[in-house]
Structure formats: C-alpha cells, structure tokens
C-alpha cells in the first residue's frame, strides 16, 4: 500500500543526498503521497492527536526533568519549586500532568474506534498488537510518572501497584523486594521509577514507528471496512489528511487547554498535594482515572493472584481480538447486532471505571463482578458467536460507491 514515491528533488544538493540516503523519498511516500481512504471520518484523526500528545509529553517532560530532584526528601518540594519559582514552571507541570490524561482520552477513543470499525482484522493484526503494546507501555509510563511528585497518592499508589507482584506464587515477595530496591517503597524505588519514566516514552516512540510502519504497509481501515480498490477510493495524505488532522488536533487542544488553564487539578487527587508519609494511609487509595476499569476488575476477584491475573488478562485479551472476532465483516456499520454489543461494551467499561473509584464493598463488589464477567464474556463468548450467527448488511462495492451513496 505504501504509495510509490514520485519524489524528485530539483535542488542539486538534495539530489546528491537522495542518491546516498533516500530519506526525502521516504518522508514523501509516507506523509505526502501515502494514499488514505477518502471516506475517513474525524475518529481517524486520533492517531495524529496521539503522535502530537507523545511529542508534548516528551518535550514538557525533558524540561521538567531539568528541574526535578528524584529523592524522597526533595522530590515534593522540587515539584513545588517548579510550580512557584521556575519561569512558566506551573505551565510545564500542568501541561505534563494533564497531558497524560489527554493522552489516555485520545488512546481510548483510538482503541474504541478500532473496535467499532474492525480495524484489527486481517491484514491489520500486527498493527493492532503493536497498538496494544503501546497502550501497555503508556500505562506503565503513566503509573511511574504519577509516583514522581512523591505526594501521598504517589507513595501509596506505588505501594499498592508494586504489591500486585507479591501475588506471584513462591517468588512474589522476592520480586517485590527486587522492584523496590529495598524492603519498602523508598528512595531506590523513586530513583528507578524516575529512570524508567524517562526511558519508556522513547520505547513508546520506537513502537509507534513500528505501528506507523505496519500501518503504511497494510493501509488504513475506513468506516466502510472494505479495502480501497482503485485510485478513486483514496486521496493523498497531503494535503487531505494533514489539514484534517491539523484541524482536529487544534480542536483537541482546546479541551486540553481548558483543563490546563482552568481546571488543572480536576483530574488529579487532592491527597497528592500532601507530601508522602509512610506512616499515614489515605482514606481511599485510588489510581488515576485511566486505570480505574482495571482496578475494578482487580478488586472484583476475591483471590489476590486471580485478581492480578484477571487485571492483566483484561488487557492481554485485547491482543487476541483479531482471532476472537470471527466475523468477516469489519465495520460495525454493516453489523447491526455487533453495533449494539459494542456500545454495551463501552458502557461496561465506563461502569467498571466508576466502580474503580468506589470502595470495594457491598453492592459495588457485586456490580463489579457482573461487569467483570461481561467484560470477558464480550471477548470470549459474544464476539466468536456473533461472527457465526449475525446477519450482516450488504457491503458496498467500493469506498467511492459508499461515499456517493451518502452524498
């Protein structure tokens, strides 16, 4: 699918370079000539938004790292010094902390879009799995970053999450001690979390390159879920996709700016403005909002080891989605039943998110168990059976036909 490059530099120096390193042609074929389906809607701009957010996080993060001190006695005050004394430090810090949430909002929309339009299906399985890996790396990076201000929720969040690994039979305690670098969450923990928090975004960037590479080999899926058949079905990436992505990135930035400038602490926890204190446990230890559905799954299971397995399983199962969904029709537009189950699944995920923020007791635990069961049932029961029994609508002959039919 990679568009054949028509790139022929006029400039003599660029011609000289191109003969030796055809980087101009690579950029041209990837981001200019690359054919994109002409029927993409705005849900397809979230890939661009995610690349933009990764850039924002890396740039703000590098500057923050110039002012931050990863030491248990100094970390909290160094973040406060950024907020108070560094020029525009408050802006950098709020961009970075809210940027993490925006990154996750965008990735959730991106993932659900892929689910709705069947973007994980043949020939895009590897593309999808690379995406799941990026998501997993994002979760790790977000968690590590949240510990760095060394507030109460940083400390206790780190304690709870690292304790998951103590559920591993036999070697659990050893693994946790090894993760902590000691017998409790302490200075070695903070040091290594800082190191890893700086490292992982570049690992993400590397996997993003693979993700985009795979995308450019198989081409983008589209709302009709059928592959382009002729040049009439596609438009070149530039100017069509660039201007559309550019427009929606700016629209997304309006929401981003709203949080940064007007409600910068809405998505955080008040407890994290209290310096970490190993002697005082907060009333409710709640992870960041983007982990809440998985936190609910963890706590829904009475056994610790099984809970941890269910939590990791709920993400791992995404990697098998291309084979669990047996339908040969990609887009939910032509799958009336799947469309309803899709929205039910979205509602279940939101419901689990809500339960993750509630104490694990009484009625909450019961609902969490039902929703956890449904979460897995969606993948293991609903999707395989739907592909067999669902009566799908007829597909259009081509992308241009589906566009014309709507016009």
């Amino acid at each position, binding site marked *: 699918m990679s568009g054949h490059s028509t790139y022929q530099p006029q400039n003599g120096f660029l011609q000289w370079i191109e003969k030796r390193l055809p980087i101009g042609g690579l950029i041209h074929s990837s981001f200019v000539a690359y054919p994109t389906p*002409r029927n993409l*809607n*705005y*849900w397809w701009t979230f890939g661009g938004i995610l690349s933009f957010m990764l850039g924002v996080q890396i740039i703000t993060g590098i500057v923050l790292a110039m002012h931050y001190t990863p030491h248990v006695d100094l970390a909290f*005050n160094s973040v*406060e*010094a950024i*907020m*108070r004394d560094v020029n525009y430090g*408050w*802006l950098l810090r*709020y961009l970075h902390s809210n940027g993490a949430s925006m990154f996750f909002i965008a990735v959730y929309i991106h993932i659900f879009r892929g689910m*709705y339009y069947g973007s994980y299906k043949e020939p895009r399985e590897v593309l999808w799995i690379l995406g799941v890996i990026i998501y997993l790396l994002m979760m790790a990076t977000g968690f590590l970053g949240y510990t760095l201000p060394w507030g109460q929720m940083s400390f206790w969040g780190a304690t709870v999450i690292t304790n998951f690994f103590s559920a591993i039979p036999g070697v659990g305690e050893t693994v946790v001690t090894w993760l902590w670098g000691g017998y409790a969450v302490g200075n070695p923990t903070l040091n290594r979390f800082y190191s890893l928090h700086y490292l992982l975004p570049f690992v993400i960037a590397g996997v993003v390159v693979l993700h985009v590479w795979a995308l450019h080999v198989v081409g983008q899926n589209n*709302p009709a879920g059928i592959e382009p058949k002729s040049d009439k079905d596609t*438009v070149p990436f530039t*100017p*069509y996709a660039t*201007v*559309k992505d*550019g*427009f929606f990135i*700016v*629209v997304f*930035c*309006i929401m981003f*700016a*709203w949080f*940064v*400038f*007007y*409600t*910068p*602490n*809405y998505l955080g926890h*008040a*407890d994290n*403005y*209290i310096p970490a204190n190993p002697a005082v446990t907060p*009333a409710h230890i709640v992870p960041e909002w983007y982990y809440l559905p998985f936190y609910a799954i963890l706590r829904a299971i009475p056994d610790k080891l099984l809970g941890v397995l269910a939590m990791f399983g709920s993400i791992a199962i995404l990697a098998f989605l291309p084979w669990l969904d047996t339908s040969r029709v990609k887009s939910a*537009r032509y799958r009336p039943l799947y469309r309803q189950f899709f*929205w039910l699944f*979205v*509602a279940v995920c*939101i*419901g689990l*998110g*809500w339960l993750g923020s*509630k104490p694990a007791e009484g*009625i*909450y635990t019961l609902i969490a168990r039902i929703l956890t069961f449904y979460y897995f049932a969606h993948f293991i029961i609903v999707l395989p059976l739907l592909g067999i029994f669902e009566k799908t609508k007829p597909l259009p002959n081509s992308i241009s036909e589906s566009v014309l039919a*709507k*016009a």
Partner: protein
Amino acid sequence: MTMHRTFTALALAASLGAAVLGTGVAQAAEGQPHPPSLKWSFSGPFGTFDQGQLQRGFKVYKEVCASCHSMSLVSFRNLAEAGGPGFSEKQVEALAAEYKIKDLDDKGEAIERDGRPADKFPAPFANALAAAAANGGVAPPDFSTLAKARTYERGFPWWIIDIFSQFQEQGPDYIHAILVGYEDAPQGFTMPAGGNYNKYFPGHVIAMPKPITDGQVTYDDGAPQTLDQYSRDVAAFMMWAAEPHLVARKRLGFQVMIFLLVLSGLLYFTKKKVWSAVH
C-alpha cells in the same frame, strides 16, 4: 451521518453511566454535611485574587495560624509578586526583618539574623517531632499547599458539571467550613480526649481547638471583624499560597483559548476548501 450517530450513541452510553453513578454517590453523601459553596473572587475563567482580602488573610495567618502552622514553601518576596497580596517591596523588607532566621555566620557559628525577602517563612517549631509533641501528637499541617490538599466528595451530577463550570474551590470552601464549623457536640456523641467537635470535619472529631473567634484580629480597612470574614480571608490567602500563579494562569489561558479558537476556525475553512474538490 455516521459521525452523528456515533456521537448520539456515545452520549447515550455516557448518560447511562451517569445514571448508574447517581444512585451510589447520593448514598455516600449522607451523614456528613458538605462545606457551603462560597463565592470566591478567584473562581471562573476571569477570576483574580482580591488584594485587600489576601492582605487581611495574611494578617489572620500571621497573628493566629502561624503560631502552630508552618508555610515553608512560601518566601517573603512572594508577597510583593504580581497576582498576590500586592505588598510593596519596602513593606516586604520591613516585614521580613520582623522575623529571626537561623543561619551560620562566616566562621560557621550558629546565629540568628533578621529575615530578608528571599527567606522562606520560618516554621513555628524546630522540626516535625517538636510540632507533633506540642500539638497532641500530630504536627499541624503546613499551609503551603493545604488549599489544594483538601477536598470533599462532590457527588453526581456535580463532578460532571464542575468540568464545565470550572469549579476548583473545594479547598477554600473546606477551610472556611472547618473554621466556622466548631459546635457543641450533639447529645450522646462520645468525644475522645483532646478532640473537638466540628460539623464539617470528616468524622467530626478534630484535634485543633477552635482557633479564632469574632473580633480577634483587627482589620484596618473596614472589613467586618467576624469569624466568617476571617475564615473567608484566610482561606483566600491560603489558596494564593498554594497557587501563587493562579491569576497569570487564567489570563494566559484566555489568550490561548482565543488563539486556538481562531486557529481552529481558519483550519476548518482551509480543510473545507482543500476537500471541496473530493466531495
């Protein structure tokens, strides 16, 4: 078309989630009264601190709270910086000089010298252990970030509305409520030793005795010398101490919003023009 349908479905899913949320949160809110929501000059997109209020709040802090509560991340110089209480540099120099700062002289001997604008506010106790020992076992919390470190559960539908109304004032509301919330314990309430009854404190048992009463601090700008006014003023001051760049943040935010709206408009029409040949 599909875009529209998908949005509708998303909205449906969200309201379904919200309907579920409603029941749970309402139950959780029972038993503990919410701090009253006050009107703050610094709320909303154009919010800004009231200099007079911050100066009064500082007076309350200095004369009452500072005998137990430190404010170790705030420097004297901050009091003269833009967006704050608006003291002059001369006033700040004079104020700093009222404080004694522990330091070393050039021979390495421990000395106490007069404070300078660059110094942080000295803490009332030598260390956290001394603070705890003098206050029934728990050190009084530092004021530097306290206004952002206290909150209460807003409940449905407020947690959604708050995003759009930009409500960020749980901290000052809570601080004001605590200060005006001292009451006699109701009949049959068992008060542990050293505890004080407070209507708004979680669990109602607070270690801090009622810190301030009507007429305790003299205001020279004609503001009412009441507990309610003191509480509002010191809460506003603490919000400034916790978020000294709040005014600059909201002002820059408005400029950024205008820029983004104009840019998105221009890009929208560019996009329409570029795509017009395809559709």
